[in-house]
């Protein structure tokens, strides 16, 4: 069975079919289930109008559940989204960006998901729609662990809500072993407001250094008011991170390089402010 609804309500009905799996951009769907033909029902949400594109809302922005990385790159968005746009350009390749969706990146829940750190700094909320209606969750409550989310069977991630970013600037930095098509060793997203040369508001998130990307609240608090961030990132700021050793690098290395990655991202963003 292959469902290809064009309305969200129909999609939600289709999502109730036993064993159905959701297909959007296919960029995680296909690699994850191997080379054989799927033997389960598929719900293709790529033609659901209500979840496409990126739109202005009363309080901010809605990134539709079907919005692709290319949609993010091409959207006219304030500077607070520069970090997310930078992340979008680093997702795989143009081919992946054209098909892969932001929502799918979240649902796939990889520790190295490129979209998560910038969306954490944007205080994004996910909009989940199921048979009993819609609910919203802060992104950090949606992502529960490696390949684990709060999405319940029968629910669809219909969109992300990002509050207005005002005068904020943002940035993103991804460290990998090659230029394109690379999974992060570590990545950093920053989001800040600078007033009179000093940081007045700051959000920092680090990815690929814990089962789920983390904000660094202690660092954010300590750097408020800072004019020069050089040398400000201390080991204690990284105590929530728990990077593992894998083929891409050791945990020790990840903790080590996160420091300059954060500092550089902050300096670059402050220069933009």
């Amino acid at each position, binding site marked *: *069975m*292959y*469902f*290809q609804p064009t309305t969200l309500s129909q999609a939600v009905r*289709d999502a109730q*079919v036993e064993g159905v799996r959701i*297909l959007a*951009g*296919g*960029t995680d*769907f*296909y*690699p994850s289930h191997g*080379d*054989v*033909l*799927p*033997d389960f*029902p*598929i719900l*293709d949400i*790529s033609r659901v109008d209500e979840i496409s594109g990126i739109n202005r809302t009363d309080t901010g922005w809605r990134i539709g559940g079907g919005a692709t990385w*290319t949609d993010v790159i091409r959207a006219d968005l304030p500077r607070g989204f520069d970090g997310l746009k930078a992340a979008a*350009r680093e997702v*795989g*390749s*143009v*081919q*992946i960006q*054209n*098909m892969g969706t932001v929502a799918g990146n979240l649902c796939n829940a990889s520790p190295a998901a490129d979209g998560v750190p910038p969306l954490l700094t944007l205080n994004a909320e996910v909009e989940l729609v199921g048979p009993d209606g819609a609910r919203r969750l802060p992104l950090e409550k949606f992502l529960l662990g490696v390949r684990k989310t709060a999405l319940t069977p029968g629910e669809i991630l219909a969109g992300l809500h990002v509050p207005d970013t005002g005068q904020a600037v943002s940035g993103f930095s991804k*460290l990998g*072993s*090659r*230029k*394109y*098509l*690379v*999974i992060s*060793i570590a990545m950093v997203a920053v989001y800040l407001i600078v007033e009179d040369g000093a940081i007045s508001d700051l959000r920092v998130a680090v990815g690929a250094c814990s089962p789920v990307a983390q904000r660094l609240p202690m660092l954010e608090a300590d750097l408020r008011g800072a004019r020069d961030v050089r040398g400000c990132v201390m080991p204690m700021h990284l105590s929530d991170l728990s990077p593992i050793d894998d*083929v*891409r*690098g*050791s945990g020790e*290395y990840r903790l*080590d*390089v996160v*420091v*300059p*990655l954060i500092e550089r991202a902050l300096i670059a963003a402050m220069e933009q402010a």
Partner: protein
Amino acid sequence: MDGSAVPMIRFSLNGSDIGLDVETGERLSASLRERCGAKDVKIGCNAGDCGACTVLVDGEPVCACLTATAQAAGRVVETVSGLIASVEGRALGEAFQNHGAAQCGICTPGMIVSAVAWMRSGEGSVEDALGGVLCRCTGYRKILDAVAEAAAGGVEPLNGSGAMGTSIRRLDGADKVSGREQFGDDVAGADVAVVHVIRSPFARAAFRFGDLEGFRTHTDGVLAVLTAADVKGRNCFGVIPPFADQPVFAVDEARFRGEAVAAVVGTPDLMARFKDGDFPLMWEELPAVMEPEDAMAKGAPELHSGRANNVMITGFVACGDSAAALDAATVQVVGTFETGFVEHAYIEPEAGFADIVDGRVEVHACTQAPVMDLDSLEEILALDRSQIRVVPTGVGGGFGSKLDISVQPFLAMAAQAINGPVRINYSRGESMQSTTKRHPAKMSVQIGADVDGMLSGMRFDGVFNTGAYASWGPTVANRVPVHASGPYHVKDYRAEAVGVHTHCPPSGAFRGFGVPQAAIAQEVLFDELAAKLGLDPLEFRVRNALKNGMPTVCGQVFEQGVGIGACFEALRDAWKNALVEVEEFNAKGGVVRRGVGIAAGWYGCGNTSLPNPSTIKVGVRLDGQFVLHQGAMDIGQGANTVISQIFAQALGFDVHDLELIGADTDVTPDAGKTSASRQTFVSGNAARLSGLALRAEILRRCNVESASARIAAGDGVVIVTDGAAVHKVALAGLDVDGDGYVLRSEESYDPPTKPLDQNGQGVPYAQFGYAAHLAIVDVDMELGTVTPVRFVAAHDVGHAVNPMLVEGQVHGGIAQGLGMALMEEFIPGRTENLHDYLIPTIGDIPPIETLIVEEPDAHGPFGAKGLGEHVLIPTAPALINAINMAAGVQMRRVPVTPARLRAAILEAEND
């Protein structure tokens, strides 16, 4: 749609309206290839990692392998075979051919489709636009040049005469850019039965089959099941007959993860859904040894009886008295170096087709060695070789791994079992699991020098992990000691290379047969030795470089053709300038430090002290057409063009007027395997001899004795132009042979070598080629990342047959050397895909300047030397020397990942 019925999917494909009934979730790549016949859409990974399957959907590039066909409904789909006729596609097709931007051609459809999208959108950089397509052959720079030329407009075809030394387009290039070339998986027709191999999930495991007969008879769509019991001949193969040890199907115990134990032949419908778990097979995992030191330890499981301590072979070369010379040396350096498995990562996984034709077995598959495939099949099938035909398909990259048989026995046995056509296409995972790798090496090396900076003793001890089966391990063990001195005059030398079995995938041939690993140890230590002596690294190398008349470590004396000195001289200016550049760059301070490194390499062309003849045949048809039977497998390197150019030069003929017949064991003589950098040298010589013989025959027929006479084909005549005189040889009335030829020649060449004695003394090769690379890198000291800035590569090729193709080889070799140095490490069970196993992308290869050095070789055709492997030997050590200079470290292990380099930087800072 409501899902209860799958309606027909309609879309536009290259301007035609298509309607398809597809399976649930069927990938667009599969629909295009299997239902629409669009075999120009290549599948390299089925995971979005390689981009070969890139097509445009409504003008946007996407991976067809990640797109459900249903998602294309109502859309406009364009593939290379359609786009090549567009304004942009035409320009790209011409420019790709002009620059040699398509070598094997398997990535070319994805590249051209992506480039069309970029030219139309004008958005972003070319690198960003092409970053999603992997190429393993070209090193990308020629692709960037080609796209730039196409974007500039007005592309004119490259016009060369084709004479030796002129750059002409590949003679087989047009089909590569249009997607028409047929690779291993492109030959089978629709609805052909599919062969699927059942493989060990464990490095070592015992296994038992359940009810195979019940499975066969009770599973709809299963046509045959194959196991070791079905091997009619010898269930054992190997590229080096005395070491043959690998079963087609394992018996009772599997020795590596990915080893074949059975195969299922089934209908395409069944096999598209088939899961290994459905096959009646019970596994019992057994303790495995994955490292040579564990395999050699007391009590370790013995992989092959008769190979005590799992030692397969030891290669040895010694001359002079290395111990005494080292003792007497003024300065000494020692180091232990480590390299990992390297995967060939050609973009075309192994694939092929077989059929029973007039009672004979015909195998069409990608291969580097069709006649060796035939040799193996003859034994495995227990068939007379006259009953087997091997027809190579296009080869989407080989680099050594497609020298060994892979799909061939499965195809042949399956075709016999069902008495009809069968196909197979390895998944990326099974290709990476089951085919050969570059040997991991652990090398302890000691080198001394005297107060004048002259070498004084060298000792090399290497242990090479040869995996579960021999493959080309003996060649590696024998080649390494012969080459580990580098192209230097080392009077007192002792080198030993041990090949050790483990429960890892078989290590085999990979561009350089172990020499690139050894070069890392030797060339990096040379820099340390030069530093201890207070000598400039280039000056130290020049001082010790091998020269004409000096013996190699095998006691072989070349009176001519030793080109390493000329390579060093070619780099001298670049080296001087780079040192200044580095100093100025680093004077600015900052976290990024620049370094420059230099390294050399040499490589003996052809088999080591063993016969490896090539035969090239040519015929002239009654209509005057000259037909060259060119059996040297072109795996992207350009043999079709180079061998033809050499032949045409000898004949005195325009290469563009030749008709080529490729390798085919029925009609084309054996030109040997495409390995050991032997085709230009060995098959080139056979082509030269064949050309000369035909020329003599033709000139005799018109009584011309002239070195400058030109020969051309006319209508039913051969035209000989000797100055102002024009002679015609009428072909009518001449006897027509069984091949349809009225004139013909067929000549062979085998390089003159002599066996090595117990100390490795002798004449291992008739010729060596030489190379030296210079690499400039930036190191981010905080992150440990390396950004190569540029390369300058000097290569002594004797006589460049086609300079454009020479550059293509150099670029591609550097890209592979860079990958080995910085990012590539295959870990069995862990990096069996192209997103965990990283090869360089288009953003990772810096500009490369190629300096062609021509020190003619007396044995080479018109002086030419081999090149294919030389090109990556100096790359990794040059990079490491540059990194060591930039970062003040001593790297001992490749790949130099950011984590490893950062650890070394921290260690150096703490010292």
